[in-house]
């Protein structure tokens, strides 16, 4: 337990060092303001299999730039599955904070993560973690994101995990006055999600 806390403290210190080292370059005036913009995701579904089982889940994330350098957000999710005799539920709510630096279309960030969750198998538990990443703004409405995450459950005996994740994220622009229209014939929809969890020691 002590070793885990020490590793967590070292990781946080490393992340803060990276953020501070990068902050000097972020002091320059930036023509691409992100303040007020928000990354969002939503994905849910329910599968109904008559006579056998049903499953349903929905989750999302809302990460808003409250300033040029701070991005704060929440990620709730709920789910349930049923068999012939039982119902299993799960839910979680995560809070995420990122310190963002960089200029122009390319931004770097480091931040922390904490969540509370509950499911039928494990009861209530918490997860804390940290992440570092970069995002490349394709337009005010979309950005590529690559992120390395570290997560560890707070209960004793649990094992931490590392993941690399790549996304193509939609963004709500900072100003809400944009007129929303139907797409032209030159539009492309895309989703890119890649992730890997390396070996757990």
């Amino acid at each position, binding site marked *: 337990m002590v070793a885990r806390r020490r590793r967590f403290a070292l990781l946080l210190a490393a992340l803060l060092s990276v953020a501070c080292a990068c902050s000097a370059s972020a002091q320059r005036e930036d023509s*691409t303001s992100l303040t007020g913009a928000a990354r969002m995701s939503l994905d849910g579904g329910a599968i109904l299999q008559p006579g056998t089982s049903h499953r349903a889940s929905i989750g999302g994330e809302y990460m808003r730039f409250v300033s040029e350098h701070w991005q704060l957000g929440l990620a709730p999710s709920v789910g349930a599955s049923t068999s012939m005799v039982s119902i299993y539920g799960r839910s979680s709510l995560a809070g995420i904070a990122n310190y963002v630096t960089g200029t122009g279309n390319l931004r770097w960030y480091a931040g922390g993560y904490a969540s509370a969750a509950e499911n039928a198998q494990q009861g209530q538990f918490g997860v804390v973690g940290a992440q570092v990443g970069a995002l490349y703004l394709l337009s005010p409405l979309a950005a590529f994101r690559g992120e390395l995450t570290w997560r560890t459950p707070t209960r004793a005996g649990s094992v931490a995990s590392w993941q690399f994740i790549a996304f193509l994220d939609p963004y709500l622009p900072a100003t809400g006055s944009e007129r929303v229209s139907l797409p032209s014939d030159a539009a492309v929809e895309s989703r890119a999600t890649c992730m890997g969890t390396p*070996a757990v020691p």
Partner: protein
Amino acid sequence: MYGYASSAVSYEQGADLRIAPFIGVRWAQVGLELTSINSNFSGVKSGSNEIVGFTRLYAPVSARAEPFLEVFGTTPTVRQPTTGGSKLSNFGGSAGLRHYVTNGSAIDVGTTWRWYARTGVDNAGSGRAHDVSLQVRLVTQIRYLAGPL
């Protein structure tokens, strides 16, 4: 949608890539989605790969609520340590509504009817002739004339 119990596996890898351009008109779209999940639990490997092709037609009446119909076909390959491999092809259709949140994102809400055509020789997916699912999903859209930053 991904749920990874990463604390219980030695490694797990996943990828989901989807591209769906509009084909010269704003009411027709074709798409391809590739999904791959592989895991190694203490040396026991399992995973699945899936290729989905689909065509979607829209009734471009409003950015607030745009009805759509979709047909799709899927060729998944499942690899399990106990049952070996299998292919459980499926096909079906969807109907729903799209709401544009911005000019770069939209929420799709729809119902999917899916039928399974079993071609494997093991027990994977046995007992499933069809299912019905409901989906809600936020999609990212890149328009050629997107404004400058």
